[in-house]
């Protein structure tokens, strides 16, 4: 039955206020919690993350060192807290650049169409033809290890998903009545594309951003694990897992706690993505 949208909206709102917002709030709480920890690291972390203590090598979790210490005697809890700074930064910057690049290319490609669209989409196909991680590692191997090259590699490889998403949305929207209406009112192409079509096309990508942050985080950890990302002794979760690997049987805590940190943050982003999807879904 077709109802007035106003009514349908109210129904959905009522339903969401009941239970659907849970994902949003949980996700927000987890992500904000990690942000807060990262910001307050100098005051919260009980020890210097880089300070080594030869007497306390591979100490098991205790009251003094709740997460234990690693093979250099560094406090794992402090390293996890300081590591949040690097990992959050990686997730943020590693998502924003591909997002911006992909959105611009996808939007223009879908709107203009024709030859330009063909060129862009073949470029996407080429990038997609390589396994994601292999391509990233190749680029980083050329640029040299470090966070900077990680961001550049992320942008060069990650934009394709956003370009595809946005392009398909724009292709649908530009057939729609309100695009035609805007053109019939004498609006310029730039205004139609960036003022009217793009805001309506962004919904999917914004949600994808959140889930992509999880992927970027795991990628960053993987790259660091392979020794191409963040360099030791900087505290970063992926690197820490890599370092703890050789002690996995004797000192489980070295890998486990940074690993749990990655998992909780990733889960936070996932929940946030679900919540934002539902919230934005209501607005349209």
């Amino acid at each position, binding site marked *: 039955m077709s109802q007035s949208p*106003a009514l349908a909206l109210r129904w959905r709102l009522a339903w969401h206020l009941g239970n659907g917002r849970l994902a949003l709030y949980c996700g927000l709480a987890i992500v904000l919690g990690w942000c807060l920890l990262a910001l307050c690291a100098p005051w919260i972390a009980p020890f210097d993350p880089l300070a080594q203590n030869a007497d306390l090598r591979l100490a098991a979790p205790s009251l003094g060192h709740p997460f234990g210490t690693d093979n250099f005697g560094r406090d794992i809890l402090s390293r996890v807290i300081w590591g949040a700074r690097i990992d959050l930064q990686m997730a943020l910057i590693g998502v924003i650049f591909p997002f911006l690049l992909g959105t611009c290319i996808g939007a223009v490609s879908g709107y203009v169409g024709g030859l330009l669209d063909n060129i862009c989409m073949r470029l996407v196909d080429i990038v997609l033809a390589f396994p994601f991680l292999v391509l990233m590692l190749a680029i980083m191997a050329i640029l040299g290890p470090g966070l900077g090259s990680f961001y550049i590699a992320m942008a060069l490889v990650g934009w394709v998903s956003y370009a595809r998403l946005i392009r398909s949305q724009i292709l649908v929207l530009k057939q729609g*009545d309100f695009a035609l209406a805007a053109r019939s*009112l004498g609006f310029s192409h730039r205004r139609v594309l960036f003022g009217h079509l793009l805001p309506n096309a962004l919904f999917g990508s914004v949600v994808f951003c959140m889930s992509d942050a999880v992927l970027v985080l795991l990628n960053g950890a993987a790259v660091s694990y392979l020794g191409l990302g963040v360099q030791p002794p900087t505290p970063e979760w992926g690197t820490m897992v890599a370092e703890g690997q050789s002690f996995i049987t004797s000192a489980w805590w070295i890998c486990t706690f940074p690993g749990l940190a990655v998992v909780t943050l990733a889960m936070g982003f996932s929940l946030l993505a679900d919540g934002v999807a539902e919230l934005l879904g209501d*607005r*349209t």
Partner: protein
Amino acid sequence: MTTLLQVNDLHVQFPAPGGGLLNLRPRKVNAVNGASLSLAAGQALGLVGESGCGKSTLARAILQLTPASSGQVLFDGSDMRQGNRLDIERLRRETAMIFQDPYSALNPRQRIGQILAEVLQVQRKVPAAQIPARVAELLGLVGLRAELAERKPGSLSGGQCQRVGIARALAVEPRLIVADECVAALDVSIQGQIINLLLELRQRMGLALLFITHDLGVVRHLCDRVAVMYLGRIVEEGPVAEVFDDPRHPYTAALVQSIADIDPARRLPQHPLAGEPPSPLQPPSGCAFHPRCRHALPECGADIPPSHAEGGRYHACVHPRLPC
């Protein structure tokens, strides 16, 4: 009365699917196939036909929103198909369009006020300081309260959204409004309100109206003249009352007969028009209507029928008058 819009022998082609594996033999669909019509300033012309007959495409080609492949579109004397930028800009300033689906024609992320203000701003209709006042005035003109400017389309009813669409068209201060099935998606009780609004605005502002619809009942209320379209061609045109009372083309006659009257005594026609509109991909030879036509003669399948024009009426059929 001066002629505002004159369309001569307009053709619009679209590429069709099925041109072979590598598209070596590209196929074309003739969506509009030599349509001609004219509209005087302040006049309302109803363009009727079944879905897929090309009436919406014709409207878009007239407004230069879809490229035509040949023919002329004269707006106020100058040919828009020459692609002169100044001409197109003038066309945009003096024409506006109203759409079928009131929701999808409005950007769901903009507030009603923004939607109207943007038009005023882009077209520089009023100084920036007066935009809010003009927005309120436009809303008043279409019978909406000024508070609605703060709302988004999703929270309005279909009828209210259609009024916003009309207000947006009026913001342009057009001389010609093209309305594409603008009441088809509305409930009957709301349809009448929108038709009356258009009637009122026409009288008050001297607007010319090209009203595209499949509903002949609506045309009778709103329009001075009516043009009937079948498979890309205009098959009959003339003053509404004359065409309805004395249709000359058998297709028009069938349409008039199929108006769903509310007369309990009236039964369904015993033998309704058989068949269905043909696909524009495989148009019949000669008169496109001949496979369904009760009065078809052998020559109907061979040649495009001659057109008869007399006393402000036009029709394209071998029969100068319908045989009884």
